[in-house]
């Protein structure tokens, strides 16, 4: 029986791990290389790294974190993939097919794209042909207005695309993406739970797997996303602020009747 995956998302900014809120506030929480060893020991299902560094965003505080030398995220990828015997998705700041090739050749199994996909959707088709559908994850960042209107955003939550999420996800599927990483800008870092309506509507409208993300505050939140149709449950912040977050997360899913790998 296929187990539902529980996936930590690690956010990298200027070479450091950060936690995120509303796609805007980013607080430094640690060293990415130390963390990957921890997750490997925990035997987690899969890892997603997203590099959310913005251009010119040099962070002066990084000198205190003893990660000098790891100035490029590719160097972090090299280190991570040496000890990562689990599926690894790498995303953020990918602007070309050539960059994808480099990322795969340095140890990633899948790439996640958002801005590139919204700006030139045919890149999804080209990437899926070249690297296989299963290697292409499209990250869909959704903002919901107070009126209830939803819109897909690019550029780390800064660029409105004018696109409606369901239609965009269907197009992404047709173009050959293997999975959708569904994020909610409103829920990011809030700890109030996933946007379950969004997860359900997207999951029902496509046949590729949906990885639910954004909003997890309690381990009990994971199962709700799966019950609404997501194939996998992902989260970022909770992994850094709760003890034994893999085992306890899995147990909470199992208690809710979700088949997981324990």
């Amino acid at each position, binding site marked *: *029986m*296929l*187990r*539902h*995956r529980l996936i930590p998302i690690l956010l990298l900014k200027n070479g450091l791990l950060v936690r995120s809120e509303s796609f805007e506030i980013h607080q430094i929480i640690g060293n990415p290389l130390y963390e990957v060893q921890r997750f490997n020991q925990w*035997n987690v*299902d*899969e890892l997603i790294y997203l590099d959310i560094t913005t251009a010119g965003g040099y962070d002066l505080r990084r000198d205190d974190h003893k990660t000098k030398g790891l100035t490029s995220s590719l160097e972090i990828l090299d280190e991570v*993939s*040496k*000890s*990562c*015997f*689990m*599926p*690894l998705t790498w995303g953020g700041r990918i602007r070309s097919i050539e960059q994808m090739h480099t990322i*795969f*050749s*340095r*140890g*990633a*199994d899948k790439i996640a794209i958002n801005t590139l996909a919204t700006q030139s959707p045919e890149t999804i088709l080209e990437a899926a*042909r*070249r*690297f*296989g*559908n*299963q*290697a292409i994850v499209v990250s869909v960042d959704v903002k919901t207005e107070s009126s209830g209107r939803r819109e897909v955003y690019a550029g780390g939550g800064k660029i409105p695309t004018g696109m409606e999420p369901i239609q965009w996800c269907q197009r992404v599927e047709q173009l050959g993406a*293997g*999975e959708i990483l569904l994020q909610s800008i409103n829920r990011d870092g809030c700890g109030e739970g996933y946007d379950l309506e969004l997860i359900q509507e997207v999951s029902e409208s496509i*046949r*590729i*797997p949906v990885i639910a993300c954004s909003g997890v505050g309690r381990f009990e939140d994971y199962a709700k996303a799966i019950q609404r149709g997501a*194939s*996998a449950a992902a989260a970022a912040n909770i992994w850094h602020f709760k003890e034994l977050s893999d085992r306890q997360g899995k147990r909470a899913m199992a208690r809710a009747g979700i088949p997981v*790998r324990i």
Partner: protein
Amino acid sequence: MKTRVGIIDYGMGNLTSVRNALLSLGVDVEVMENAKALRNVSHVILPGVGAFGDGMANLGKRGWLDSMETDIRQKGKPILGICLGLQLFAKRSFEHGCHEGLGWIAGEVVRFESADGSLRVPHVGWNDVQVVDRSRCYREGIKEDPIVYFVHSFHLVPEDPSIVDGWCEYGKRFVASLASDAVWAVQYHPEKSQKQGLKILANFLTNPFS
């Protein structure tokens, strides 16, 4: 010959993760850019992700097809196909048209389908293997039903099911792994399946059928 593993580089997918997994087992590894390197290695891995047609075309372009036949298959050099590597052993595949494969395993590669269209494809994630033969991949250090990582949209249907040493279930039963003499193949990714996956790779390195 001392154990030295050669990974066939034919431009399909992520060789680095296979290499890193083997290095963690403490064995010598060579990423082989061409078939000349075959004489230096005791074991061969045919990895690969991507489309079947491209895989066969690339094996041809890089001059692997003849030497795989003469220097691996005819000599009985142990080879492990992973994911697309497993599928390439088949006679043919119906991924984006119909493509001839290596033909080492009698069988065809078909897409996952369910009658009501409810199955999500690709099949991505951790699923259990029902082991039916413990003489090869699952010889040592493997749990009763090991859980391993799959990511694929197509699977191989063999003419002779007796070569299957592990089955998996997704919509219906399909081949997780098979073995015929020194030719072994797994549909899942042992290099991405944590400790159980590394054990499976270690079992291949002590392949008793070579």
